[in-house]
């Protein structure tokens, strides 16, 4: 049971980083990202391939994966050059994500296709004894989550953070005030992308084995659910939201013990139906989520 909780904790940490990344792009910046699953795939595969084929160490590979996903996200954001409506952007990100997943599935020479990549080494995996390694990984994940939270908090409260929120509220007003909307959007998406890359790398380290079936579009539903439940724009909310979604998901594995008639396909289907229905119910009854976005407050004396 303890080891189950430790493993659950690690999963929650990298899901929370993914949710924080989406929260920065969409919750704060108003740029919807339906290609999340594809960018997450890109992060995990870049990290794994930099180690396995490029001979990089785990730290360099993680940084490399972050840079690659950030660049891919920045390039995607460039299509907002003329059209700023979010619905068009949603379709573009959906298509870009789909394309990235297809690359992972089809480029056998690089990604081994449906077989996936195996034997991904873990950070300090050869130094720390195997029996206590999960505790180290949990500690590392928590540290990275807190680091992400800190960076994003600093960014959100900086002048750049104010531009980000201004774009979400009204990009025309921001442009009128002399802000470069396109450049700001590219940077918002790149920052989010870097953390998607980090989450993807941690995914690769945790499972040590990645294949295309781990990265279906359901990832998008999980992340949006986490951000909406936590409250759009609220950083701490995104973390609690991700934790709630993951506990719900991992907990529903035990449904199998309660209702033995369910085979694994059906169980997976039920879990996704629950997530989808939950997402719609949240949007209808609690669209503001359960936590609030940080606001600068001045105390009156």
């Amino acid at each position: 049971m303890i080891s189950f909780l430790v493993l659950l904790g690690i999963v929650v940490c990298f899901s929370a980083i993914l949710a924080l990344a989406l929260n920065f792009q969409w919750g704060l910046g108003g740029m919807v990202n339906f290609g999340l699953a594809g960018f997450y795939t890109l992060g995990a595969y870049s990290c794994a391939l930099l180690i396995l084929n490029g001979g990089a160490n785990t730290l360099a590979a993680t940084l490399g994966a972050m840079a690659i996903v950030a660049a891919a996200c920045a390039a995607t954001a460039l299509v907002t050059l003329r059209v700023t409506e979010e619905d068009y952007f949603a379709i573009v990100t959906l298509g870009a994500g789909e394309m990235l997943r297809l690359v992972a599935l089809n480029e056998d020479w690089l990604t081994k296709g449906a077989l996936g990549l195996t034997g991904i080494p873990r950070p300090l995996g050869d130094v720390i004894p195997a029996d206590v390694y999960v505790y180290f990984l949990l500690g590392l994940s928590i540290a990275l989550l807190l680091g992400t939270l800190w960076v994003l908090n600093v960014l959100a409260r900086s002048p750049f953070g104010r531009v980000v929120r201004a774009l979400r509220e009204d990009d025309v007003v921001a442009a009128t005030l002399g802000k470069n909307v396109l450049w700001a959007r590219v940077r918002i998406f790149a920052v989010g992308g870097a953390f998607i890359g980090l989450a993807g790398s941690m995914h690769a380290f945790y499972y040590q084995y990645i294949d295309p079936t781990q990265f279906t579009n359901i990832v998008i539903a999980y992340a949006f659910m986490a951000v909406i439940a936590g409250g759009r724009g609220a950083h701490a909310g995104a973390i609690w939201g991700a934790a709630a979604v993951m506990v719900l998901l991992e907990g529903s594995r035990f449904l199998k013990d309660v209702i033995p008639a369910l085979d694994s396909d059906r169980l997976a289907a039920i879990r996704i139906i629950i997530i989808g229905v939950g997402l719609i119910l949240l949007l209808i009854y609690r669209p503001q989520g359960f936590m609030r976005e940080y606001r600068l407050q001045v105390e009156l004396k």
Partner: protein
Amino acid sequence: MLQTAFNGLVTGVIMTLPALAVTLLFGVLKFPNFAVGAMMTVAAYMVFALNGQLGWPLAAATGVVAVAFGGLCIAIDQLTFKPLRGRGGITLMVASLGLGFVLENIARFAYGNTARSFAIELARPFRFLDVRMNREQMITLALSALAMTLMWLLLTRTPVGRAMRAVADNPQLALVRGIDSERIIRWTWFITGILLAVGGVLIGMDRALEPPMGSNYVVGVFAAAILGGLGSALGAFAGAMIIGVVSELSTLVMPPNYRIGIPLAAIALILVFRPQGLFGQPYIRK
């Protein structure tokens, strides 16, 4: 080359119905509905239940399911999208994504992941100018042409069609003129449901029935609708044809696995160079 172009034409024709549905919904409701793919899947499985399991002829099964699915779409709208109306496109968009996951997995729950196909007797393909055409492709062409004609008549010649265009063009003005927009929304969903049900059957005939069958078409369908100009029925038709033929021809020069790259590139180009689409009109949202 000719054969490939013809196959592309059929692929394009298959996409015209869902593209039309997307463009109609976008016109009236002002948000892109990402659940269209899963809706086609569910409708196709409903037809499969009547045709493959109860042994009805495919045409009869499609007809019954199309009308029933139109009703079902109205019910879905009342449950999910009606409480969210007026909340802004992004909320509705995320809700439609969630709805898509729910519908696709209801189909998966009921029929599993194995591919199935409709019970239709095999017929020998015939040749015309060295192009091989099979019977399913002919049915697809005929059915889509019929649906397009009916849609055109509906939109231009009937009071409901005029009201739909009025709501799409300017909801406030339509309201002032006494058009009940909720009634028009119900009509739109009903027609959309029929289009999607027939579209789902055509996809099932062309490929096979499996849970992701509809969502595989989502990017292509949206590309078609955007290329033609969201909200323009003629544009949806032209966009679907262009996307279909170009992506099929692209397999001559690049690996077929990346066919989806063509609609994606089309979206990117059209958004940068002509955001209102080929046949659309630029409009101001705020």
